[in-house]
């Protein structure tokens, strides 16, 4: 009730609120006395858009007042120039803090300060929460990996699309594939691999026990493993002859291990249409599989030099001048390659359209 009364300006509604019951008269007179200045205070304090106009008006009025005061003082006193600055300061300070009206810019300032502290504490809270969050999660192992399992598959070269359209006789149409592959394989250079990584025994997991935070060693995967698709012998990766090489890699997942003794294999075929559109594919390494020694992956923080194993598919005899949809699937125990919504889990689909 008190609030309701206070929010009213007396002159705006002369009759409806002037009338009050007898027992309230005393109180009301106090309200009437306060109301005008309070109303102005309120108008100042408000910060909501639809009141901005009013506020501006008020401010303008205030400014006018100040100007008037200035003029008055200049006329009435005609003080020397030295005092003008003092007067100005007084005016400014009055603007900032007007003792009569008990309101000023300082109020607006106060709001800003309060909001600042409120948001500062909110920021502190969120920081605290984030800090706690980081305390609870390990930097080496993700808490949950079930969303990223089963592994996805990706191919290289990759240039915005999974359609390989090129004309053998026009190098411009395939040159970027070559560049992309070359770039991608830089990290697989034999020299680099030999320098950084260890040659570990094939056919078994490369398990490195020990503390979580210990740096882990990585197994070598040399570019030369890819033979004809390594770009070492044929720098055009077969594109110049219409026998393109496409590299396939399996997405890294921390802790993922293929079934023991059953490495994940890759097999490609025509996805739709005539099976014979692709007459032969050469796989490198010849096993067409990802060797067990490249697993498990220990995460980017400790397993710094981990090199994803690759399988290169050399499409040596593909029907030319026609789009051939190719599906390459991972095969192996625990591998899922038939998720309807996700066309990149355990398989990858691309089209080859080689023109001569």
């Amino acid at each position: 009730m008190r609030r309701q009364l206070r929010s009213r300006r007396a002159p705006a509604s002369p009759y409806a609120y002037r009338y009050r019951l007898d027992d309230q008269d005393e109180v009301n007179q106090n309200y009437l006395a306060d109301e005008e200045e309070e109303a102005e205070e309120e108008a100042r304090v408000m910060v909501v858009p639809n009141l901005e106009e009013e506020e501006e008006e008020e401010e303008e009025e205030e400014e006018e007042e100040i100007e008037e005061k200035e003029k008055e003082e200049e006329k009435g006193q005609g003080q020397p120039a030295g005092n003008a600055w003092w007067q100005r300061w007084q005016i400014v300070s009055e603007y900032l803090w007007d003792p009569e009206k008990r309101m000023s810019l300082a109020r607006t300032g106060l709001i800003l300060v309060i909001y600042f502290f409120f948001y500062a504490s909110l920021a502190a809270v969120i920081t605290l929460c984030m800090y706690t969050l980081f305390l609870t999660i390990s930097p080496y192992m993700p808490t949950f990996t079930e969303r990223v399992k089963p592994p996805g598959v990706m191919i290289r070269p990759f240039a915005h699309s999974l359609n390989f359209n090129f004309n053998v006789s026009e190098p411009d149409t395939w040159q970027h594939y070559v560049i992309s592959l070359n770039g991608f394989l830089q990290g697989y250079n034999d020299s680099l691999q030999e320098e950084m990584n260890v040659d570990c025994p094939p056919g078994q997991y490369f398990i490195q026990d020990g503390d979580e935070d210990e740096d882990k060693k990585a197994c070598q995967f040399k570019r030369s493993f890819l033979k004809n698709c390594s770009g070492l012998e044929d720098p055009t990766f077969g594109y110049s002859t219409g026998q393109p090489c496409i590299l396939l890699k399996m997405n890294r997942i921390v802790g993922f291990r293929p079934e023991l003794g059953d490495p994940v294999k890759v097999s490609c075929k025509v996805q739709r249409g005539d099976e014979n559109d692709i007459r032969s594919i050469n796989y490198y390494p010849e096993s067409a599989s990802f060797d067990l020694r490249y697993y498990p992956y220990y995460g980017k923080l400790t397993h710094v030099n981990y090199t994803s194993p690759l399988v290169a598919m050399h499409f040596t005899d593909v029907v030319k001048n026609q789009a051939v949809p190719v599906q390459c699937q991972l095969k192996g125990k625990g591998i899922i390659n038939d998720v309807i919504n996700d066309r990149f889990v355990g398989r990858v689909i691309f089209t080859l359209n080689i023109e001569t």
Partner: protein
Amino acid sequence: MAKKTLEIYSVELSGMKDIEQTDKGNGKEKYRGLKNCFEPKKNHRKEELTKELDLDDHKLSIKELEKKYGTNIITGLSSAQAAELLARNGPNALTPPKETPEIIKFFKQMVGGFSILLWIGAILCWIAYGIQYSMNTSSSLDNVYLGCVLALVIILTGIFAYYQEAKSTNIMATFNKMIPQQALVIRDSEKKTIPAEQLVVGDIVEIRGGDQIPADIRLLSVQGCKVDNSSLTGESEPQPRSSEFTHDSPLETKNIGFYSTTCLEGTATGMVINTGDRTIIGQIASLASGVGNEKTPIAIEIQHFVHIVAGVAVSIGILFFITAVSLKYQVLDSIIFLIGIIVANVPEGLLATVTVTLSLTAKRMAKKNCLVKNLEAVETLGSTSIICSDKTGTLTQNRMTVAHLWFDNQIFIADTSEDNSNQVFDQSSGTWASLSKIITLCNRAEFRPGQENVPIMKRVVAGDASETALLKFSEVILGDVMEIRKRNHKVAEIPFNSTNKFQLSIHKTDDPNDKRFLMVMKGAPERILEKCSTIMVNGQEQPLDKNTAEAFHTAYMELGGQGERVLGFCHLYLPADEFPETYTFDVDTMNFPTSNFCFVGLLSMIDPPRSTVPDAVTKCRSAGIKVIMVTGDHPITAKAIAKSVGIISANSETVEDIAKRLHIAVEQVNKRDAKAAVVTGMELKDMSPEQLDELLTNYPEIVFARTSPQQKLIIVEGCQMQNAVVAVTGDGVNDSPALKKADIGIAMGITGSDAAKNAADMILLDDNFASIVTGVEEGRLIFDNLKKTIAYTLTKNIAELCPFLIYITVGLPLPIGTITILFIDLGTDIIPSIALAYEKAESDIMNRKPRHKKKDRLVNEQLAMYSYLHIGLMQAVGAFVVYFTVYAQEGFKPSALINIRVEWENSNVNDLEDSYGQQWTWYQRKYLEWMGYTAFFVGIMVQQIADLIIRKTRRNSIFQQGLFRNKVIWVGIASQIIIALILSYGLGSVTALSFTMLRPQYWFVAVPFAILIWVYDEVRKLFIRLYPGSWWDKNMYY
């Protein structure tokens, strides 16, 4: 009172106010505009008033009338003539008001409020798809779906609002039952009964007691006919009719009977002079339908709120659209951001919630006998600051009742309450015995048979109002009146007529030893006194001297001064020798004495106030509501009733009173000294709008008497110009324009005419003025509770909006999807926000002033600031913590998420690395994104529970209010949780809804934030209570 009004008359129903009816210009301009147009309006009204007087048929002789209307009073019109006139003038029925076609009402719902904004959103969706399709024909249909969902949301909420409106309008259907009315008419020299609709001007009709007058008729011959004009003029007394021209004004003259008024007794023959819309009633009806519907305060508030929210939505939307474009986002993406921002900002479910809340209150009020026709009117009563009440039938019982008695030089007060049972005055005096005998015997009124089990006051009586009052009075005190009359056999009688002004009857006495005849007489006191030579005091006859005559006059003036109708009673025992038992009395030759009676006493009657009214008026007063009486009745009666119900309080005086007390001229009195004013229609006519304004401003207690329907309208307008929210109560046809004009018109359900009910927004089923107080209370409560509901609903908008802003600026994967937002707005949040309508008041809401129309807004800046910038931001932070937790635990730490947006959303990138070096396919990321949506959704939901709890109160601590008092809140919380569980675990596999299963622990991540919100709000309320009026209070109390 069996005042059955069967008129087939209705005025336009005031349907739900259209929110979309935009109110151009700000309040000030509106006010100024009103002021400007007031003057011509009033002149216009005056013209109408004079136009009414154009009717001069009452002045014409019968011959002139016959000539004018080409009829014959014996043979009537010929059928051919009648058919021709009927074809020319149309049927004798009021034109039904134009109804807005249903389809237009329906479409109005589709474009009102936020719908426009959502339509824009939907259309943007389709445009976005169009752009996508033109670039890539295999683009996903997501945007089409979203557009369809938005359209569906608009259509569903539109249908819902339409249904609610239709339902509340249907309540009125029962009142519109049309009973075909018959009229007895002379045509082709034959008496025929035809439907009243077929009456034409010039028809000769016959009416009998109990009939409704079928058209405006000029009475040609009359036998003791009395009509009830109360629905037209507000006079509760039956008006005698005669065929003589008695007054210049057609409303006052006795030889006119008005359409739709009732003939109470007697018979009459009349000529139809006006039919259908040209009747007086028809003119008032057209006045009523000409009055525009005022927008309800709540409609204005909701519109204001819609403007605020839409303003925020559009400005943020456009701001970020520009930002996005300048950040080199594609236009397509920017459009999608814009859609998201609009959807996040618009509280889709809110308007439906408000409608439900209002209809819940309407139901609650209907249980308390306030039937609300127009849903939005539920709140209007709460913000009412002036009630203009009709007197007859609203404040009073609309039946004459004995109020005072004077005998033995003393005034006795009779009980005037509704059942009259408690008559406490001294009944031992011998004078009373005589008086009661006169009252019983000198009375022609009789109870209709077969009402033995009906309470006396409710029995139907054949007879006029005063006689009825006397009959009931004596029945209550003496018992079986009819039996007493039988024992005192009536031998002769002169009924009351206006020339004699007395009624006389001669009876045998019931005392077998007394062979004298008893002659009893009642009538106008001064006439009765003239005929008396003695007066009975304490059962003894005494000569009537100057002193007793003076005492009589004092008593007569006193009772008359209270607006009561006074009757004098006297008797005379005829000497047995002169008038033996066999004597035959002849009333025509008056072969019996008519003077030297013995005066017994006076008795005064009034239409007494309802017993609940004074209390209700006091309650209105303490609630800061000014009660003004506006009546067509006499000023003296009006003032007396006003005093007795407290509209003029006991210690306040009018200017006239002061003048009388100080023995000075009225002009000399300082007008400021008077608190009360009684203004008649004649005075009002001569007032300028400024004077009326001054009058309304200066006097807290005002009574308007002798006002015409047009003047009632002017009074209501005058009040509205002062920014008051005006409620008008009334029951008669004459009230209907004012009922329509008022912010809320309240009609009486039992005594009210259909016209009044049609024009009103609310109907008091029990005719009890006290129900208005209930209505005020409910209205104020609903306003407070709507504030809470809106605060609750607005809060999460920030939590829904922030994700988009962060998404655009920081490039995180989208934290919450548009569809998910819709599931919050229209799913989890609906029941809780309705539950807030059941919240009890925090303090005595009847002790505060009515809210100021312009200042106490439903959505004020404090509410918006607190909801948006305090709780809303806390919610956003809490929800983001849940979101980050899910992403971090799945492998994407917050740092890895920054600026990941483009790659994240590229469906060709299927080996995106997370913080651990793992590589994600696009679909795996998408699924994770949905999990993020679900997590964010759950985060908001959990914090909305806290929000719901804190919104229970605005000032008091939750613990003062009682955490468990409002059970519906807990139903709301349960519904929130259950809906969320169903969405996550039940529909988690339906990818189109983008909900996923969520690990149980994520449901609890936001709980600390929920607690924080609660604590923060308790602290806020604590400071408000501790430092009322402080800076904090001003800025943090909404």
